[in-house]
């Protein structure tokens, strides 16, 4: 078996997303999803419910009256927030582990993923884009291919790095040359095997190369730009550093100005601090293998 086949083989044995997260993601295809539909799913998970209530009552949000039911939590936090936090908390322990090869601590990958999710959301607001429900979660999962590819990158790191240095090509291109596949494609294949909605699969698959997708989409462009900003800001950077390309086509299509870019970047730090404050209140859920 060559390395590429070994990697693809590994994707099928990668732990699946908890059933609950899958059900929640399924709802994303429904534009009329309501808070009660979401609460119907999460109410069967006492740990998640408890965590959401804890978050709704977190000191950070500054309310004095405590919420006592999940529907009150919805009222206080909003459907979108609950949804994002549910999915985040369910995949939390999947993302919070160190990734060899890229030398990412569990904290690094989580931080980078959360930063990209928040940045894509912030950019959406600045660009007045109609709610793209999948964006936040796509941002959260865009680099999950690194979790699988890490050990292979680790074995061939010197070879990959030598190509990056000598030929001045992006890191993912060097990955492809040495391993036959790169972390974005591995992530895309994993998302596909998890039966994610097509937009999510595409934005994970093409996040380093939006032009590679048959049809570039706003979602892909947004994840690409958000990822670029977070790399530039050094948020959760690994051994691959910032050896990646910025695709000008994405900037033109989304019509992002320097001012939007810098304002959004300044908002990112605050957003990240807010999430850090709230997440502190949510202990890691034993997500893998629970369902």
């Amino acid at each position: 078996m060559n390395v590429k086949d070994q990697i693809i083989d590994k994707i099928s044995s990668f732990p699946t997303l908890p059933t609950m997260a899958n059900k929640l993601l399924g709802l994303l295809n429904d534009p009329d999803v309501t808070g009660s539909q979401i609460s119907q799913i999460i109410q069967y998970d006492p740990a998640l419910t408890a965590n959401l209530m804890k978050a709704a009552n977190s000191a950070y949000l500054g309310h004095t009256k405590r919420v006592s039911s999940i529907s009150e939590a919805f009222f206080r936090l909003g459907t979108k927030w609950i949804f994002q936090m549910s999915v985040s908390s369910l995949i939390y322990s999947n993302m919070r582990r160190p990734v060899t090869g890229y030398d990412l601590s569990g904290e690094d990958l989580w931080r980078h993923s959360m930063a990209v999710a928040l940045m894509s959301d912030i950019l959406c607001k600045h660009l007045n884009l109609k709610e793209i429900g999948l964006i936040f979660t796509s941002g959260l999962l865009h680099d999950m291919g690194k979790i699988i590819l890490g050990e292979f990158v680790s074995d061939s790191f010197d070879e990959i790095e030598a190509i990056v240095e000598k030929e001045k090509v992006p890191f993912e291109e060097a990955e492809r040359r040495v391993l036959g596949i790169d972390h974005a494609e591995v992530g895309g294949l994993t998302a596909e095997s998890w039966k994610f909605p097509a937009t999510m699969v595409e934005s994970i698959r093409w996040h380093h190369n939006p032009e590679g997708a048959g049809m570039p989409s706003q979602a892909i462009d947004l994840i690409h730009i958000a990822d670029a900003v977070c790399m530039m800001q050094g948020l959760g950077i690994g051994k691959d550093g910032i050896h990646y390309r910025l695709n000008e086509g994405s900037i033109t299509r989304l019509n992002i100005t320097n001012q939007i870019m810098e304002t959004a970047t300044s908002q990112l730090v605050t957003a990240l601090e807010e999430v850090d404050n709230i997440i502190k209140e949510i202990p890691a859920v034993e997500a893998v293998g629970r369902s």
Partner: protein
Amino acid sequence: MSLVVLGISEVHVSKMPGDILITYSLGSCIGVTMYDPELKLGGMIHYMLPLSKISPEKAAAKPAMFADTGVPVLLKKMYKMGAAKDRLVVKVAGGSQLMDQNKVFNIGERNYTVLRKILWKNNILINSEDVGGNLSRTLRLDIDTGLTTVKSSRGVQEL
């Protein structure tokens, strides 16, 4: 030895013997160190954006987020603790960009340009620097000795 870690948009000044000021993952952000060897007094800032005009309220809450509000804060803190301008040793690291970025959103380059202007207006020279490229850098200042180092994928080098 005690390690003082600076996050994004933070500034710190120390003359505590044994202190090491350090900041990680400088991409397009810039880290500046200032050191007065006579007092063994050192300071560092890790700012992310060039100009505060994009968000005066953020600048009010976190002046070290921007070069134009943050660098003056670092200077004032240094002077307040007795630093003399003619003894200041100033070193700079960061200002990276992604590959093929040219002028598009080149926050790293703008961060550096604005810094040079501010220092020039204050009649302060940069003693040494390691800026640009596609590197992620860690900047470290030893308060006891003033030794300033940069760590990146190219290894550790003295600035």
